[in-house]
């Protein structure tokens, strides 16, 4: 089975803030991970643990100091221009806050059509139908197409964001805290939707969150990050039942000791 994502010994260091200040410690200190085809990897860690840096590096938004990142076998740092844009179509991104990631001025139809038009699809009669199909796949009826994003509830807006990420039929979905801005009952709906999409489309997912319990429910494997390193990794069931690190236990142990 080919790896959809493979990261080897990745080191990320941000530049110094001022001319005379020392360079900060590396944000990532040699991280390696893989996501295989059809697999969901949950990446858990608190703020400052390096999960956002890792995510940005995988998306090619920040340069690596050393190490390698390959998406579907391709090293993006070797690509540029049109080739990079084409390669990027294989990755769909869903951010934490749908109201920030969706333009409030565009209709849902325009939001969903944007990636298709950017790819060079013709602006023809089928476009509307394809947007409606994307929306239906994410559990919203076609009458949402003319609405503006700001008129949606949080759950509806996140469904639109997921539909947009699916527009170019990606192989990998990168989900950055996709449910942490949502209410518990809405979170359950979105987690169910992600499980359905994974089963139907064989998507690989990289699910990043600080909430270990949310990601443990949907992920096949988990990686716990702390201070720029992956400190523990394993299948979700194993890691939840037998956490090896105290830190992982801390993340798990808070709350839900239902007395």
């Amino acid at each position: 089975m080919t790896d959809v994502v493979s990261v080897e010994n990745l080191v990320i260091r941000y530049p110094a803030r001022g001319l005379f200040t020392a360079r900060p410690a590396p944000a990532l200190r040699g991280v390696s991970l893989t996501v295989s085809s059809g697999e969901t990897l949950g990446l858990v860690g608190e703020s400052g643990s390096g999960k956002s840096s890792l995510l940005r590096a995988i998306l090619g938004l920040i340069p690596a100091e050393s190490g390698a990142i390959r998406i579907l076998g391709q090293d993006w740092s070797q690509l540029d221009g049109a080739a990079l844009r084409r390669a990027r179509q294989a990755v769909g991104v869903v951010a934490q806050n749908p109201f920030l990631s969706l333009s409030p001025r565009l209709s849902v139809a325009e939001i969903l059509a944007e990636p298709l038009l950017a790819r060079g699809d013709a602006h023809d009669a089928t476009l509307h139908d394809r947007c409606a199909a994307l929306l239906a796949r994410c559990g919203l009826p076609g009458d949402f197409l003319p609405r503006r994003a700001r008129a949606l509830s949080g759950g509806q807006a996140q469904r639109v964001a997921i539909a947009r990420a699916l527009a170019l039929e990606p192989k990998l979905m990168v989900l950055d805290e996709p449910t942490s801005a949502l209410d518990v009952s809405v979170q359950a709906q979105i987690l169910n939707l992600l499980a359905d999409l994974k089963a139907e489309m064989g998507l690989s997912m990289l699910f990043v969150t600080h909430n270990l319990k949310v990601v443990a429910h949907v992920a096949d494997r988990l990686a716990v990050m702390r201070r720029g390193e992956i400190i523990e990794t394993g299948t979700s069931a194993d890691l939840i039942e037998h956490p090896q690190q105290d830190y992982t236990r801390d993340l798990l142990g808070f709350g839900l000791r239902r007395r």
Partner: protein
Amino acid sequence: MLDIAALSVTLPSKSGPIHVLRRIDLRLAKGEIHGMIGESGCGKTMTALTLLGLLPEGASVRAERFRFGTLDLSRHVASDLSALRGRRIALISQDPAAALNPVLTIGRQMDDVIRSHHGLAKGARRSMAVEILLATGLPEPEKLLKLYPHQLSGGMQQRVVIAQALATGADFLIADEPTTALDVTVGAQVLKLLRQLVETRGLTVLMITHDMDVVAASCDRATVLYAGISVEEGPVGRLLSAPRHPYTQALLAALPDAAPHGARLATVEGSIPPPTAALPGCAFAARCPFAMPVCASPPPLRQEAGHSWICHLEPT
């Protein structure tokens, strides 16, 4: 400490009255940490604003009973409560970075609070600030007084906010999602601190949250709100292990650790009724899996072993 029965708050609007709170019942004993649970739009924040006397102009507030300590406020809820704000009641908000003034030192901000509430000479104010900062578990308070909020971590900022609340002399704290902006392990420490302060300083805390983990980890009792109505109240252990109201049951079933790994999570169909709607019967009936024709009439109050809820369903 706090005893509220049938509190309603209505805001006027061009398209008719907005029922932001329909029927809130809330009782807190002194020294209790009481959770207020519910999803967006359920009335958690409006209840807090009511308690702080910060409702917008024109709000109509009614209550069958409204007692705070020995004070009976049921006649003039809104005006009387704003007089208590900062003296007896203080707020700890979700985002400590927003609660603190970014351009003033911690020392200056502590001093402002202490001066306006206690007067005192400069030296006495300073030692009081140091004492309170120490009580919130902040190391080296002397040094801290010279720092600005951005130089502190989120957890330390939240401790400073708690210190400010204590400095007012308030004995009733409203903590509005106090751990949401913090990392899980830091949040756990803040909850531990609140518990410790309840025990050492005799505080009473109303903990507003949507997070059942926070409730389980920190609260003695809790009230569940739905559409501006208190639907269930009880000791946290019973509430979480044997919820009686169908909404509470649905809320708990939707948690990711309620289902086996990878299994579908239970969801609640539909959405909460809009605050403009008139709700003569049970507010949850339209989404309830157990709804019956009788649910169109107001649900009766049911009680069992210190646990109460409103529902037409006969207890089993």
